[in-house]
């Protein structure tokens, strides 16, 4: 197995001379100065690793959020009827490691065409985002693609109670205050 090059052994003459002339220190200075110099004239583009300045100025420049990002939860609605997709099966609540989901449902007669079926219907849905660890297990357990973790990531609120998202919030999403500056 190869060993890394360590400092064992005597220095060669070239190394001694380099050391006396402070080459090691100047090499580092050169690296940092080249960054400083490039930062002064290069056009800036946030988040590009090939440029001298990497900073994204977050509230001004919105970050690129990937498609698979697991952020704020959402309850999807049926795009045709506008009804919730949730069938109140409670699988998400069972899958959750931190018990942050509460599903409330009642059994009720639902008219489907001409038949009248007794069916479980969603009443309340509480999602505690302060406890959630965004592991996606609930969304994976959902049989109807109703519960989903979306790309919005600004979940800060001014009060603890704001972390408890009810069904309405989950279906509409919360109103963010977008800071322009």
């Amino acid at each position, binding site marked *: 197995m*190869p060993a*890394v090059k360590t400092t064992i052994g005597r220095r060669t003459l070239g190394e001694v001379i380099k050391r006396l002339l402070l080459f090691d220190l100047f090499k580092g200075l050169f690296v940092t100065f080249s960054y400083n110099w490039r930062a002064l004239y290069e056009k800036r583009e946030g*988040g590009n690793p090939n440029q001298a300045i990497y900073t994204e100025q977050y509230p001004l420049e919105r970050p690129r959020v*990937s498609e*698979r990002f697991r952020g704020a939860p959402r309850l999807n609605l049926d795009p045709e009827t506008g009804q919730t997709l949730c069938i109140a099966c409670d699988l998400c609540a069972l899958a959750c490691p931190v018990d942050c989901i509460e599903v409330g449902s009642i059994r009720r007669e639902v008219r489907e065409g001409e038949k009248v079926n007794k069916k479980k219907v969603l009443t309340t849905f509480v999602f505690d985002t302060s406890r959630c660890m965004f592991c996606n297990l609930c969304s994976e357990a959902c049989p109807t693609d109703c519960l989903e973790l979306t790309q919005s990531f600004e979940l800060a609120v001014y009060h603890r109670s704001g972390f408890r998202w009810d069904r309405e919030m989950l279906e509409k999403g919360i109103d963010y205050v977008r800071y322009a500056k």
Partner: protein
Amino acid sequence: MNVAPNNQIPNSQGLVKGMHEQEVEIAPGTLFDAEEMVINMGPQHPSTHGVLRVILKLDGETVRDLDCDIGYLHRGVEKIAEHDTYAMITPYWDRLDYVAAVSNDLCYVGGVEKLLGVEVPRRAEYLRVILTELQRIASHLLWLGTHAIDIGAVTVLLYAFREREEILKIFEDFIGARLTAHAFRIGGLWWDAYPEFDKRVRDFLKILPGRIDEYETLLNANRIWLSRTVGIGILPADEAINLSLTGPVLRGSGVNYDLRKAQPYSAYPEFDFEIPLGENGDTYDRYLVRMAEIRQSIRIIEQALDGLPEGPVMAKVPKVIKPPVGEVYFSIEAPKGEIGVYLVSDGTTKPYRMRIRPPAFINLQSLRRLSIGHLVADVVALIGTIDIVLGEVDR
């Protein structure tokens, strides 16, 4: 010989009473009879890497004795696991070594798969290797930055974080989270690679070697860096083994023990890579070993990308995971050392017992051995060189 009375030592809540005898007893009335100073480093100290509390017994600035006080971040993950189903435990593993979440996931998921006897698809194994090696690079970069900032080179931290950020972006696109990834599921992966994954990773691997050269220009030959690391905290190979250290701390002492070679798992036998070893076992060697490991990880990822097979990424695993009665130990080479899981199944959906072998916790015990006799400034460097993460130490 006279002994300095114990009650002269400023005692902080009796915490140092259990500490060990002094190396040399000090006679009163001498130049050196000044009381030893007990100083608390942490848990709110900028360079204890989290909430580690180190109680230092100082003679001037020389460390006479040292005691680590841990547990500020204890969550009881092992107990929590007894109440959760197998699938629900995975996200908790992200939060052990939270700078190397993907590696932790691989360990746990691999353990459950071993218990179940599930064969993971080859494509999934390859993707796992790619992600785990990227995580190793990210973890080593974070270690490099924090280690350098402890010794005073602030700029390296920012450079290292820039490259780590690129890895996190790749993770975000692949897994959906940056830090606490929840990368793997039992039986494979939840998501297949996204279309540009190959290109993104290759682009990153193209710029990374140049950047590593940059860090090494700043540090490798720098006389200040050398004087701060060479000969500091020398750990001979036999002592390192006796302390049951693993990972770069062990390999820095010249012991060739890497689970990827010694006890191959996942797709690692199919790749060609080398295990970098140190010679002197000092802080500088551990630094070099980690830098060399980053380069080896690049090699592995390139090979894995070249040979990435087609196929499914998820094995056929029942929705409700009910392993047979039995027990299993599975361990992998995490960036910090051997992370292992010991699972006891009683045939139900929840493990009867889960035990974690935490590398950072076990490596941390070498801190006392390393730092006695060095100066306060070296303690900071030594905490850095062991590369601890308190999420894993305290569990």
